[in-house]
């Protein structure tokens, strides 16, 4: 499991109702069920990953996140998770509002573009490629990169209250200069 996902499992209270957006092969949902008895649904658009979910026996809904969360009623989940998917979303503001509509709490993780290595590569005149940003610029599914500072600005703008933050590098928490030394950020937020 990815380091951000291990952190997410710790943050989900037992028996919470969970919605995992961009759930991949469903392994996080499976962990949440096995370790937290948290029942949930995943949303995934990719055919191969949807099949993985069915094989993994997790509930998966093949719909496009860009069209919103109209399948889900208001406040129907304890926790809505967007793990390393934020950077692939076109309408981030819209989706953040939708997540806060259907969930009591949202957990968002993303690769931190403020990490020194990304900054250095840009300073040297190249788009960054790294463990957390593994794509060349011409083939990346990512459309919106941000730093931890950027994300926190957005939260303020959307009146989202950050309850908890964990910045990681190579699976270890980073507390000193996190926006410079952390490569992945995980936030737990609620409506203000």
């Amino acid at each position: 499991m990815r380091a951000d996902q291990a952190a997410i499992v710790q943050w989900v209270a037992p028996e919470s109702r969970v919605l995992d957006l961009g759930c991949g092969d469903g392994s996080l949902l499976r962990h949440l069920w096995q370790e937290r008895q948290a029942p949930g649904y995943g949303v995934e658009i990719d055919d191969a990953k949807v099949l993985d979910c069915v094989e993994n026996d997790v509930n998966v809904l093949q719909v496009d996140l860009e069209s919103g969360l109209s399948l889900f009623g208001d406040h129907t989940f304890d926790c809505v998770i967007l793990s390393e998917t934020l950077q692939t979303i076109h309408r981030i503001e819209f989706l953040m509002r939708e997540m806060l509509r259907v969930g009591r709490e949202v957990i968002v993780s993303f690769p931190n573009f403020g990490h020194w290595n990304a900054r250095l590569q840009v300073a040297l005149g190249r788009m960054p490629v790294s463990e957390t940003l593994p794509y060349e610029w011409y083939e990346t599914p990512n459309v919106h990169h941000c730093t931890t500072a950027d994300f926190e600005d957005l939260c303020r703008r959307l009146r989202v209250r950050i309850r908890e933050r964990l910045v990681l590098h190579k699976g270890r928490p980073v507390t000193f200069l996190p926006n410079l030394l952390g490569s992945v950020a995980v936030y737990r937020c609620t409506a203000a």
Partner: protein
Amino acid sequence: MNAPHDPSSVGAVHAQKAQFGEPLGLKGGATLPGFELAYETYGELNAARSNAVLVCHALNASHHVAGYYADQPDSTGWWDNLVGPGKPLDTRRFFVVGSNYIGSCFGSTGPASNNPATGKPWGADFPVVTVEDWVEAQARLADHLGIERFAAVIGGSLGAMQALQWTLSYPERIRHSIVIAAAPRLTPQNIAFNEVARQAIMTDPDFHGGHYYDKGVVPVRGLRIARMIGHITYLSGEAMAEKFGRLLHRGAPGFDFDIDFEVESYLRHQGDKFSTYFDANTYLRITKALDYFDPAAEYGGNLSVALARAKAAFLVASFKSDWRFPPPRSREIVRALLDNQRIVSYLEIDAPGGHDAFLLEDPRYHKALAAYFANIDL
């Protein structure tokens, strides 16, 4: 007459009939004094009787789901690509029941059967039946076969409506419902297509108000047109363009009203074929069953309330090119199930086949069904 041995086929099969003497009260108010239901089975019912899967058919198909009849090697079942040893619905693991419905023209009691009150075919007097009535009849078949609870009920299109209705009529008797290319109710546009088909049949001079059996005629023209309309709605525009383009049947335009374009040839062929084996009175009743299906109707149109009593786990699947029951119609069902916190997965498959895609072998579709069935505990 042996067909070549195919290890993934259930092989030679035969249709069976179950007789039910108890009267069956129908949703429309009429009562059938008793009835016969045609069915086929594949695989073995296990000792715990926990591996039975009911396959419900759509408009023109029958209980002949898989395999072939020994005396007709070309008679492959309509969902043979799904059902068989090693196929997604694996008959080595599951006991599969293909059930016909009442009102059909394929062996179950229907308009062409004798009305015990008169000793003559029912014809126009055969009652209008509904999806709910079909499920009642199938529940009696389940009793007859000693199946208390189905591991799954699966169907596409009108068959999917039965799979959904099972979860509402008998929530305790179905563990999984697999609802493919479905709609929770027809749109006015869907009903309009059905009405044109019915009018084609009823205005055929050979229809005789539905009492044509003893006149030695069949409303062939009406059936042909009804089927042609149906086929237009089953295929996507894209699939039609791919299949026929603007190919000319005779190589050049005829400047007459004989067949010019290949698509005309196709529709005429489908219409001709259909009119030789399908009964007009059955067609009228099946389209009515489609029109009337609306589980939300008695709950003020609220599907979420209507589905509250369902207990099954669901797999819902739709096809992007299906414009008869397009994906948003399946999403209505999914939304209602989510409102009730039911176990549900939903596939939206980007296959080109239109409404008929549920009968085709798209690998994404079949792999997902195989994975879903493999995860059903027995």
